[in-house]
């Protein structure tokens, strides 16, 4: 992997973000990591996300719809199950021709059964960061 790869993190938990960033920085110091913390943020920024040419997207399954600082949070899509927000983000990325080939990894507390059947999956644990990074490397290599 070249050192200037771009990675998108769809994750709401600041501690997990911190540890994933630490892990990526340790393995690929030059990598650029962006983060999106809500489903609505992905929807709102999708064009810029699609145009950013990310090399990898890491998705948590349970992310909120909007953030507390979002002034537009009253339009919450209450019928949407927050525990499937990651799957909806995954579908959106997969269906758009600009992002359909970007490697995606589900990184979540939930069981594998909760993520789309064809998705790459790593379960969060106290020892899972190296596993996540190994899997990310494999996905990036496959693209190359």
């Amino acid at each position, binding site marked *: 992997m070249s050192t200037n790869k771009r990675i998108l993190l769809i994750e709401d938990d600041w501690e997990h973000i911190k540890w994933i960033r630490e892990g990526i920085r340790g393995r690929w110091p030059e990598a650029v990591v962006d983060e999106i913390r809500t489903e609505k943020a992905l929807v709102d920024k999708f064009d810029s996300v699609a145009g950013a040419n990310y090399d990898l997207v890491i998705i948590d399954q349970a992310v*909120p*719809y909007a953030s507390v600082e979002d002034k537009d949070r009253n339009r919450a899509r209450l019928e949407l199950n927050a525990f499937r927000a990651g799957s909806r983000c995954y579908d959106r990325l997969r269906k758009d021709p600009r992002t359909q080939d970007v490697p995606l990894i589900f990184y979540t507390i939930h069981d594998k059964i909760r993520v789309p059947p064809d998705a790459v999956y790593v379960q969060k644990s106290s020892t899972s960061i190296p596993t996540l990074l190994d899997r990310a490397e494999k996905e990036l290599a496959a693209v190359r």
Partner: protein
Amino acid sequence: MTAYLSRTRSKKSLIDNWHLALYNIRVMATEVHRVCADVSLDLIRSAAECHLMADFSTVLQTLAEIGGAQGCVLWDTVPFGPDERRFIALAEYLPGELVVYYLPWDSITGEVVRSGKTRIIDDLQREVGLRERGYCKPFLEMGVTGICSIPMTLEENRAAAVNLYRFDGAPFTGDELARIEGAAAAISYLFNSVRNEMGFRLLRGVGDLLRKRGSAALQDSLARISEAINAVESAIYLEDALEAPGVYALRAFIWPWDWEIEKRYRKDEAALTSWVIRNARTVRLLDLSHFEEEVSASGYEELVYRNKGRLEEAVRRLFQKDVLPPLSFVCVPVKHHGKTIGAMRFCVNKARTRFFDDRHVEILELVADQIGECWGAELDYRRGAEEKRRFQLLTKGADRLNVRAFHELNRHDGPSLDRQLQAALEPLAEISGSGEALSIRLVDSSRRELRPGVFHGRRWCENGKEREFLDRRIPLTANYGCCESVRDKRVVRAERTRDTDPPISNMFPDTRRTLHTPILVGDDPVGVIDIRGFGDQPFPPLLDLIAGLIASQLGLHHHMFEQFRNIQQTNARLQKAYDEQSRILDDFHHQITNPVVKTATYAKKLPTADADIINALRGNARKAEQVARHMQYFIALAKDAPIKADEQFMTPAQLLERLSEMANDEQAVNDPARKLQFFVNETSFKALAEVKVRGNMELLEHAAMNLLDNAGKYSDLNTNVTVRASLSQKHFRISVTNRGIPISRDDRKHLVERGVRGDQAMSIVAHGRGLGLYIAEKLMQAMGGDLEIIPTDSGGLNEFRLLLRFL
């Protein structure tokens, strides 16, 4: 022959005994030969060749020739009507047009009839006292020179005379007189013979024509009858009991007049034809010109005729004569199985005979019976075919309805009673025929009303008042057919009414009949079928039973659908409970696993740990402990198990210590980027140092942690979360205040319900199932305290209070 006709009122036997009729004619000829043996057989032969009454002129021609005369008229006494002492020309043979139709009783013919002796006038012009009489003048103008008048008797002892007229001035000789008298004696028999021949031929001919059935057969038959009796105007009116009972519609007619013929009659109308139908009695009038005199003399009570003047004018124009012929009229009832189903009428004879006598009437009555039988048979056939069709519609409709119910039950969105009711109206509309507006209203038991349901039928579309109908509700206590049907649980049928159901009758003022059928589930009415009829066509027979069957099916389907819906609702509740539990377990799994993972992650860093890591480790461990207890309390509450709360006395100092720890822990697990600050106001606790708070530290700690956890999740960036103590008259209060998602007065009621989260809360935090405040309240109540939620104040501050008893 008369006796024969009387005996053979059965038309079938009459028609079938045609050979007997021919035998009668031979008998008649034999009798004629016996009476006047010396008369030429030519007279008999000419009579035998007559098939129509008009042909009888050939007999009179033969008689004239026998007597060496150029004309011959058969004069009959008027057998009915106001003037029985007049003569009317029954039949004639003349070289020109007959211009005199009546002779007075004091005429020469009258003298002959009265005396019973033949009279000869050889020179009418010179006969003193005659030529001045008015009735002679037309004969003189015709060129009559001599008359030979011979008395005779027609059947039923009617006095008559046959007059021979000469135009050549020659006198009647003795030999001629003898031949004339001999032959004239046979005229009565021959006349009867020809008429009976005509009658039998007519009956047989009409019988043959009617076998074809249909309106063409009726028209052909009428033409045949009119030809046989020389009627100018004729018509047949018949009732179609299937389509329009009580209406006698024109089925066949011959109408030479320039005004419109009546298309239909009803029994109760003031008209000749209506009178005949109403009284089931023949009306025969000699001359409509003398209508009033005849009616008063013949006992036709309340008989009305309005077209006299118009008819006289029309006949003058038609015949182009100044002298009107007798406007004869006969109308006979048409019957079937003793019931009058119509009338057949004839008016104005265009040639001999000039009027309808008793025998004519008898023949016409027999023909009317034939027509009645034919029409009745056709109605029976149609009725049978219609009943068969309705039966097929019913069985198919009922079958379709059941299949439909099955499909409704299998629909993904569940069965719809309205769709099923709508479907039921289609076969009912087809079966009911005249039911052009059908509807079903449903019972709203809670409001004791009939509520709008579904409707069907052409009239609804034409009326365009569906919305008005749909919006209308009718109290069950109303005195309407539909309500009565529901109240009494029975079919309510009403004919010729507009008052049984004003809400709809007002929309359809021409409603003629209604049928209301209750839809029952067991013994409970759930709706009512309203079938509304217009026009003359009645509801078909057994419609009440048919509607009852459909209603019974609908009741069953209604019950099935209700049961199905109950099952669906139970399933939905179970599914919802399952989903809720599934989500709660997912959430618990997430919430308990996440701090455990983090705890373990921090634990690995312990060898190089700084204070932040230690705090984070402790905070996450507490979070895990909190979630575990959360699960424990949730399960207990779900089972309605009591939460044990051993009462302790807690000092504010103890509470301060614990709450400070919790605030620190919450601070440690919160994202530093959000810059939230958790404070415990120590002063407020220390100020209440003397108070002894009653409660349970473990439960209180859990309730307070829930409040701090919520504050951590839902507070705005860069704000403070403050914990302070206060005292009210009844309670020791621990308040947690923050700035974040606002809470309205309505929100605070719902936030403590199980599984309820505020809309905004759901949108900004993925995990959490709305159990925190629910459990906190239950815990506080288990300690004899409570949870109080204060709506957001004008400064944007939210406050949650834990209320505890104190000493």
